[in-house]
């Protein structure tokens, strides 16, 4: 079991968790080094270009917001065109040279990263936490995604796993995972609904439970709706107050916005327990913003957001062909369901008291651990359990006139497939373009474009004669696979794909390689290598310096001292201790300072003897990072 350890990961908008199935048949969350079960989904880049994840990254968010990023999940699998609204509310800083259609890149200080890379940093932290806990490597994982995630968002999540060095055995929908966690110890039968309102996403899933089979019959949601949106409303009010009452425009001051964000989140949480609270923020110039807010005001404010969950709930029930009375159980998932008004609304919608026995922050990770156990071969606790999930969105292809012909309908159990036939419209035509879309709208332009294919190498035939069979298959992760062939010639049609959003395999591979730079162990290794390289540069320069006339201008004591320092450096250079190498380098640098100066003088001297500055090439000298660099001058 130890060598095949599969963990379950909840990669959340606000918090991420890793869990596993204990030998007692109960899933449990693995705490981080700080003892906390939750790793905030926060990534920062420190001044030494080291990546910081989770709670330690908080201070960067407050002090140097340009070095930190949060809620990256909102950008997974999205293009620059569809995040305009997001950018108004979130301090994402996009790379300046971004091209339309390119995968987004987010700036952290002076570096930029794609959303899958940033998510990979979080995953890597969770992987490390699990490895520390087990004392063994962890290479396989189940990762949860919002049920309503589309193909591109799912693929981006899978890519993030790969970049983090994890084999992603399955992407599981978050509400379904929660149902698994709830269904584990209680033998439920009947129909259950899961209402999952998290930090950035909303899902509703309706499942039929039947002798250990968890069959999703309908799902719906909004991948951009959650607690973040409530926070943003409060932040906007605070910023308006501060501008109106105090004459301070802080909208562009990232530090202040982050301080306000922290204060409103505290207030939001307090209002779940108290009838009123105070939002309090320290402002620049020793000013202080204070505002009292009652639960009633708060509820009125968030009502429009809450109402946005009603449509998806009703649609899911309609798709399932069920009325609220036919639903036996309702479970609440996601941190935002702690808000009393949310609970009240769910109670009203389903006309029953919802379950919330399991911690709404942890239940998804626990369910992921259950699924991880099933995929890892199962145990006594999970041997009868099987999850049958659905695709949340219809899959279609663009037909003439820009309308969509649906080929796999939403809420179809996955894996699901469809075979379509295409032909040519012009005599001798050798390629056919296919546009694949996901969504429910009638017109192609209103749906999510997944990819454009070009079926190439069709043998020239009269129009309408070629018969190209294209097979679309949605796997158990909800990810689409396409293959094609021309049937009359029996030739495999060549497909060239233009994924609308997303990384190519090659890009992911490169990121996997690059990501090794950030692994703790590899980081140390890199520092050793860098120190060695530097040592070898300085030693080579010293050899050259000894042949320079300046060498003889040194006193014999100075030469002895340098020889001693050189010996000391050579003694440690092959050790794996970069600190020792560095201090030996520093000592030798110090000792050869005068040699460098003398060489510099002689170089300048030779210039005075009639050579031009260009020929002497001292340009590098003063700029060089190393004092002995002028020795390079020949």
């Amino acid at each position, binding site marked *: 079991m130890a060598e095949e350890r599969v963990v379950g990961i909840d990669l959340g908008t606000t918090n991420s968790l890793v869990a596993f199935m204990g030998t007692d048949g109960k899933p449990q969350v693995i705490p981080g080094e700080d003892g906390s079960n939750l790793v905030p989904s926060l990534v920062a880049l420190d001044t030494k270009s080291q990546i910081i994840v989770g709670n330690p990254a908080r201070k960067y968010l407050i002090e140097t917001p340009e070095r930190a990023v949060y809620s990256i999940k909102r950008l997974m699998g999205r293009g620059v065109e569809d995040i305009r609204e997001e950018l108004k509310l979130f301090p994402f800083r996009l790379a300046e040279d971004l091209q339309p259609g390119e995968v987004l890149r987010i700036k952290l200080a002076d570096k930029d990263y794609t959303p899958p890379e940033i998510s990979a940093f979080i995953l890597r932290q969770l992987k490390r936490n699990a490895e520390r806990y087990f004392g063994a490597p962890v290479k396989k994982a189940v990762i949860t995604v919002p049920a309503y995630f589309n193909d591109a968002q799912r693929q981006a999540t899978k890519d993030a796993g790969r970049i983090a060095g994890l084999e992603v055995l399955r992407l599981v929908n978050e509400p379904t995972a929660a149902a698994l966690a709830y269904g584990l110890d209680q033998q439920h039968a009947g129909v259950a609904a899961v209402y999952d309102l998290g930090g950035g996403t909303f899902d509703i899933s309706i499942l039929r439970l039947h002798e250990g089979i968890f069959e999703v019959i309908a799902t719906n949601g909004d991948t951009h709706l959650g607690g973040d949106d409530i926070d943003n409303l409060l932040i906007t009010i605070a910023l308006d107050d501060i501008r109106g009452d105090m004459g301070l425009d802080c909208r562009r001051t990232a530090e202040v916005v982050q301080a306000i964000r922290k204060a409103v989140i505290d207030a939001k949480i307090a209002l779940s327990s108290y009838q009123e609270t105070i939002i309090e923020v320290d402002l620049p110039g020793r000013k202080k913003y204070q505002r009292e807010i009652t639960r009633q005001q708060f509820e009125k404010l968030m009502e429009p957001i809450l109402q946005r969950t009603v449509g998806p709930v009703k649609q899911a029930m309609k798709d399932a062909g069920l009325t609220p009375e036919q639903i036996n159980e309702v479970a609440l998932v996601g941190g935002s369901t702690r808000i009393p008004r949310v609970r009240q609304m769910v109670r009203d919608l389903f006309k029953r008291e919802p379950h919330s026995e399991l911690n709404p922050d942890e239940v998804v990770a626990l369910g992921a651990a259950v699924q991880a156990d099933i995929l890892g071969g199962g145990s006594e606790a999970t041997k009868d359990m099987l999850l049958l999930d659905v695709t949340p969105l219809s899959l279609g292809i663009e037909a003439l006139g820009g309308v969509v*012909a649906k080929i796999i309908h939403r809420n179809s159990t996955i*894996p699901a497939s469809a*075979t379509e036939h295409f032909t040519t419209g012009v005599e001798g035509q050798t390629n056919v373009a296919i546009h694949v879309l996901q969504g429910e709208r009638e017109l192609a332009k209103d749906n999510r474009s997944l990819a454009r294919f070009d079926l190439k190498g069709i043998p020239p035939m009269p129009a309408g004669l070629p018969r190209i069979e294209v097979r679309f298959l949605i796997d158990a992760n909800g990810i689409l696979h*396409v293959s094609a062939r021309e049937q009359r010639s029996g030739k*495999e049609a060549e497909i060239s794909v233009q994924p609308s959003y997303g990384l190519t395999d090659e890009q992911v591979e490169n990121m996997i390689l690059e990501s090794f730079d950030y692994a703790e162990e590899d980081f140390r290794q890199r520092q050793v290598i860098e120190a060695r390289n530097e040592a070898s540069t300085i030693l080579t320069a010293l050899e050259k310096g000894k042949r320079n006339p300046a060498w003889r201008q040194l006193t014999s004591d100075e030469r002895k001292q340098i020889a001693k320092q050189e010996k000391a450096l050579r003694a440690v250079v092959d050790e794996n201790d970069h600190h020792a190498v560095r201090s030996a380098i520093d000592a030798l640098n110090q000792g050869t300072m005068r040699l460098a100066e003398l060489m510099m003088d002689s170089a300048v001297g030779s210039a005075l003897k009639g050579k031009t500055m260009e020929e002497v090439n001292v340009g590098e000298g003063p700029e060089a990072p190393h004092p002995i660099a002028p020795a390079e001058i020949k």
Partner: protein
Amino acid sequence: MSVTNKPEAALQMFDEGAVTHACWSCGDMRAAHFCQSCGKLQPALPTDYFTFFGLPRKLNVDVAALENEFYKLSRKLHPDLYARAAGQERQWSLEKSSQLNDAYRTLRDPIARTGYLLKIEGVQLEEQSKAATDKARQTGEEKKQVIPPELLEEVFELNMQLEEARINKKMGERDPELLREMEGTRNDLQAKHDALMDELHGYWNEWDALPEDADESLRKPVRDKMVGLLNRRSYIRNLVRDVNEVLEA
């Protein structure tokens, strides 16, 4: 999304004719999904949905039994059970469970089941209408749908009502009288739709009563009746949808 055109990764569905009756693993005789001898999962072969479930091509289906069989096969074919298997078996499990899901989804629904049977009997219901739609678009003409004669009068009146209701909506007006009339028409149509289902069951019985080796001259009339009925049904359903759109707005 991933795309492939590599022959080895291409789906088995394409390898028509490559039917083997020996288990790939032990060489013994294989059953439809698993080897009878060693129990190993077998490759996904092209098969129609009825055959996949071991059912005859008949339209009266015991849906409860079908559901049981679906759950039973799901427990054996689902990719979750092959997460640790070799790549080939994993691929077969993926293909087989997609066949299973596609087959169950189609056969449990009376209309989808009827349409599917007609399709594998050589009637291209869907493609006919798609081709007509495409042609109409190319020529810039409105697609001419054949109005079922018994609905002619009702459709004519309903279209006028719909037009009026849409104009009212544009002007921000509301004509309760008109809306009530439309609701009446809608209910009337819904009743016609439900009656069609009874009619369909009659055709199912006719079809199922045909001997397996029945001559084409016996099969065609039943098929034609079902095609006509499905067309009428989809026409009525579209009308109901149009009315509901106006009423719900």
